[in-house]
């Protein structure tokens, strides 16, 4: 077969159904391989603190993919995402007491979160829009209350210790091994959602989002579709929560406050609703934002010595965070995913503008 430099047409059904359709060309393949290698080598030259932060970013990627599945693909608003993270995290803490290996604990954490997610979804699926948001908010408050009160299981408000993760009898500890583990799980999650996107279930979700009446007319079981979306979404949140618990080594209910739910919604909005790349970019953006603001603030403090970084730092971060959400919603409702697509289009169609 003749080697082609570039083509943007498909020559077989297999190519048409590919998870990453742009990889039929030579250069995109090279870039993709380079990106994979870069991701594998990334933590080596970085300071430990940055690897630590990036690990949180990767955990957030998994959670954000879950929420984007629910909100971006299936169109169901949820403010209870932090509860599902908490459920995964506390399951991990609980199972850690019995010295179970990671390969058992993480799926178990996901399953617990998913089953509670389906329980939550059952009564709330009649609701839509604002009412659904308020119902999930109510569930968040109730689950938070339950976690604080169930001392014997969760350690209550004081929190609980989490045993370190073990895989094949070895303990995963330190920033670097954790980076590779989280990267692996995040990559699997990305491929999973990418795959779901082109499957029957994924298309059904998008149909329900776009018009539930039309979807019903087309024979899509709406309740089941929404339930699936809730289940998968909370499963991924549970996995993210489990990783978070392992990484923090000590969890309490304040790790899963309402602001966590809000920040996950912010991730998918800043990233772009209903896109995989948006979940990834949005999660990394929101996790790295406070760090960037902190660095900028320190730089500003060295120019203006009057600035009191210790007292006002947290508030500047918070205000910047709120402002960025507002600005993205007003001016870039399609989020970072749109930027990404524009950049790709620019290079793909170069030297033409489009």
């Amino acid at each position, binding site marked *: 077969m003749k080697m082609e430099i570039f083509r943007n047409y498909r020559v077989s059904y297999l190519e048409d159904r590919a998870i990453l359709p742009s990889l039929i060309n030579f250069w995109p393949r090279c870039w993709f391989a380079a990106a994979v290698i870069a991701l594998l080598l990334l933590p080596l030259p970085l300071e430990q603190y940055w690897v630590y932060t990036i690990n949180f970013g990767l955990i957030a990627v998994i959670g954000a993919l879950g929420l984007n599945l629910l*909100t971006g693909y299936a169109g169901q*608003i949820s403010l209870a995402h932090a509860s599902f993270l908490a459920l995964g995290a506390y399951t991990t803490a609980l199972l850690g007491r019995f010295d179970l290996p990671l390969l058992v604990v993480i799926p178990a954490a996901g399953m617990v979160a998913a089953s509670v997610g389906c329980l939550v979804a059952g*009564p*709330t699926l*009649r*609701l*839509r*829009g*604002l*009412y659904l*948001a*308020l*119902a999930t*908010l*109510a*569930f968040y*408050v*109730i689950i938070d*209350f339950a976690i*604080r*009160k169930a001392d014997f299981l969760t350690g209550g408000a004081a929190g609980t210790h989490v045993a370190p993760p073990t895989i094949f009898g070895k303990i995963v500890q330190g920033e670097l091994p954790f980076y590779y583990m989280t990267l692996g799980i995040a990559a699997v999650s990305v491929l999973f959602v990418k795959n779901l996107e082109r499957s029957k279930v994924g298309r059904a979700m998008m149909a329900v989002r776009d018009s*539930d*009446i039309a979807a*019903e007319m087309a024979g899509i079981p*709406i309740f089941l579709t929404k339930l699936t979306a809730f289940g998968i979404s909370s499963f991924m949140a549970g996995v993210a929560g489990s990783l978070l618990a392992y990484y923090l080594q000590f969890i309490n209910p304040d790790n899963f406050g309402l602001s966590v739910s*809000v920040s996950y*919604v*912010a991730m998918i*909005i800043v990233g772009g*609703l209903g896109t995989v790349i948006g979940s990834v970019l949005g999660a990394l953006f929101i996790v790295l934002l406070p760090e960037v603001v902190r660095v900028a603030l320190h730089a500003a403090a060295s120019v203006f010595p009057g600035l009191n970084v210790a*007292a*006002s730092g*947290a*508030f*500047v*971060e*918070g*205000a910047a*965070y*709120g*402002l*960025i*959400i*507002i600005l993205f*919603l*007003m001016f870039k*409702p399609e989020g970072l995913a749109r930027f990404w697509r524009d950049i790709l289009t620019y290079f793909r169609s170069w030297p033409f503008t489009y």
Partner: protein
Amino acid sequence: MEIFVQLLLNGVSLGMGYALAGVGFVLIYKATGVFNFSHGQLTMVGGYFFYLFQVQIGLPPWWAVPMALVSMFAVGMTVERLCLRRMVGEPVIAILMLTIGLGGFLRNMVGLIWGTQPQAPIPLFEPGFFELAGVQVPRVYGWTLLTASVTILIFILYFQKSPHGVAMRAVAFDQDKAALSGISVSRVFALSWGVASVMAGISGILMMQLMGLDLSMDSRGLSAFPAAILGGIDSIGGVILGGLVIGIVEALTGGYIDSYLGGGAKEVVGFVILLLILMVRPYGIFGTPEIRKV
């Protein structure tokens, strides 16, 4: 019995607070279709504006209160003009998230400007107690209740009788037809935000009389959601009743159940009610039914 009366009274004053906050929600929701998650923060901003004029600038109260309310009106109009006007017709989640982001922004700006130091209540009313059914009640409670009731009454009159109120109701009823009959919808939107912010400012000043000022004040805005939903999100009368019911239930729960659970049940019971209401009658007791069966 004395405890019951005490709790009931606490509940009624709490409920009046929710009703006052709830009226603000309902006004914005009715007129503009936005459910405002930043109402709690607006309340806090109102309290801090009062603090600014009364203590930091040193104006007498009959100047400080109107100044604070005028500033709140300006804040509300500005928010509507800068942020919400662009969002007409956007999906619910975008608007919801915008108000959440706005709330975070306002809260952190308050923290940045006024710091984390809690402020003691600045008494506007004379101190002392009066007796009601054998219970000594602080006068502040009575005055707060009275002010809240009068404010709500004035608001209802304004909403029912004044040309502005009629325009707001027309826009709430049908935006297109209101526009066709010569009402400037965008001005009504701005006015609704302004008036709702003034209501938030009043409840902020009243709340400050009872509990002082600090940065946790905004979380009380969250507790007003169940009140708004219970009564029906688009019914002014409903939200007042809902506020009173939720307030009394919360106070009684706090008095009788919290001691068994070690605190915290008070904050949750409102949301349990919210959930039950949403499952049984999502549009609340007096709200407009919105039937869509799929």
